């Protein structure tokens, strides 16, 4: 079965390897340049904390790096969705499943290799991107930000496994390639957005820090994930909107301070108002990578369970 899978996917495999090689060359060139700039910056401007306008390379590379967030989807979209759908659609499944192997075996070996391939591809691209992002992250402290967290370290492999399982499952249920690809695309984007937006900030109980409204304070150190921020009053509730809907730091100015609207901070501080920031500290980066990868792997396992169940029950 392994040999059979290889025979059927070797051209796709070669294409994937070629695309990866092209990406690797581009990222190596720009990454080496960025690393060089960074090393000289460490010796120079960083000492004087004057690296504000430091450029590590063309913004086109940054765009390319952000675009790699689509990479984990591709194996699932182009290999996973057709894996069963195309065979069901063209009838070749009847050839495959009347050789002397069971469907379960056939499916297990094929999806096993596809899942591995997806994880390896996404992992390899992620390794490149992680390496490339080193100086950038250090400069901008954005490792925990959505469009950097999502494309570095281990989560891309988790996403790729999920996309592959989603594609295979959609193909088994819909039995047609194009609808299966559409569902894979939509399902992947929706699940990624949902989890990144709504679930990720709450994997662990966030830390809250309070600041005086009058002071100019620095935020937490390192690359943290901001969950929430604003102003709260002495009773722990945010100020109610006053007359005229004036705002300060994005929060309504309470009625008692409406007279000092030009500079309400001292008045609000006097009345017990303070700023807060709820966040996930930088030290939790790896825990979050692990949790998010785990979530997507569990989702993938559930989808594969459905696939096996459907194919065992339904006629070919």
């Amino acid at each position, binding site marked *: 079965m392994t040999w059979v899978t290889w025979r059927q996917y070797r051209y796709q495999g070669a294409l994937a390897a070629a695309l990866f090689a092209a990406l690797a060359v581009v990222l190596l060139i720009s990454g080496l340049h960025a690393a060089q700039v960074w090393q000289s910056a460490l010796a120079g401007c960083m000492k004087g904390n004057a690296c504000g306008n430091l450029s590590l390379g063309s913004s086109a590379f940054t765009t390319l790096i952000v675009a790699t967030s689509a990479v984990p989807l591709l194996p699932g979209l182009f290999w996973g969705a057709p894996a069963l759908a195309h065979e069901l659609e063209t009838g070749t499944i009847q*050839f495959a499943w009347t050789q002397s192997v069971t469907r379960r075996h056939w499916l297990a070996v094929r999806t096993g290799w596809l899942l591995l391939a997806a994880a390896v591809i996404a992992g390899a691209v992620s390794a490149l991107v992680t390496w490339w992002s080193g100086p950038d992250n250090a400069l901008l402290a954005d490792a925990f930000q959505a469009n950097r967290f999502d494309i570095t370290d281990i989560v891309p492999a988790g996403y790729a496994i999920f996309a592959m399982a989603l594609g295979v499952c959609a193909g088994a249920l819909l039995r047609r390639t194009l609808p299966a690809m559409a569902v894979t695309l939509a399902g992947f984007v929706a699940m990624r957005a949902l989890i990144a937006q709504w679930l990720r900030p709450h994997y662990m109980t966030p830390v809250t820090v309070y600041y005086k409204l009058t002071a100019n304070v620095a935020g937490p150190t390192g690359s943290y994930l901001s969950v929430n921020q604003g102003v709260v009053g002495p009773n722990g509730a945010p100020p109610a909107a006053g007359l005229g809907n004036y705002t300060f730091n994005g929060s309504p100015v309470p009625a008692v301070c409406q007279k000092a609207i030009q500079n309400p901070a001292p008045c609000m501080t006097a009345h017990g108002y303070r700023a807060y920031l709820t966040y996930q500290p930088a030290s939790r980066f790896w825990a979050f990578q692990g949790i998010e990868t785990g979530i997507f792997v569990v989702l993938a396992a559930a989808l594969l369970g459905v696939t096996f169940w459907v194919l065992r029950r339904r*006629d070919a």
Partner: protein
Amino acid sequence: MTAVIETSGLSKRYRRVTALSDCTISVPEGRISALVGPNGAGKTTLLRLLTGLAAPTAGRAVVLGGTPRQDPAYLAEIGFLAQDIPLYRRLTAQEHVGIGAHLNPRWDGESVRARLGGLKIPLDRPVGTLSGGQRAQVALALTLAKRPRLLLLDEPLAALDPLARRNFLATLAEAATVRGDGEAGGGLTIMLSSHLIADIERVCDHLILLAASRLQLCGDVEKVLAEHRILVGPRKDTTAIARTHAIIREDTTPRQTTLLIRGSGPVIDPAWAVEEPNLEEIVLGYMSQDDPVRRAGPEAARLSAVGGDQ
């Protein structure tokens, strides 16, 4: 003689459609059985139930002594050629041979090379670039390379021109003389579905006729021929005939009546001219019945006995 295929009350319902209803057949070992019937009669469904690709909603099939199932030992015994000859279009015949070698316990790849070489079909070109007839030959050679004991072929002739059809049937007839597991002695049982009665009449010695998802007829061709007669006579009441014979089809013109009847008893009334029908006339007679479902009801059980008492 042992039956290779034995079904009782085999039925398959899809959500709203009944594809096969209460089908009870028996096919003895070594037969080449023609599975005929109009489109939508349930031929493909029956074949898929016998391969185990589909599961019946009622009834039971016993094939080669066991239930069709997802089991390597069972799958190794059957060769199945699905409708429209599905092969991987981008892979060559040689690569298909490789796939078969990896997925089957007793694979005879050499036979494929010999067979296709004899027919001058290239092994190294993607099968998608071959003609329909060549593709059918590749698929048949691959199916035979499994060395099955039972060969199930779904409309293998549909897309072929007359010459390709003849070549295909020649390959089939030759294969039928060699037992699946390599021993000599005509032990390979074949069931093939087709619309082309005239074509398969020459190679088949057993007939299964389906219409409106019900079994109409199942038995050896010789016996089927012997049991049917065509009566031609003046237009008259047929109730006397109906008492001793089953009237399969009645054609009436203002001047004469033509009947296709089944039953071995003599027709005494001298008003009828008795003719021996050929297989095609019998099959067409059943296929053009006014109400095959009604007819199949009481008939099916009796007809199945024809196949069963071999």
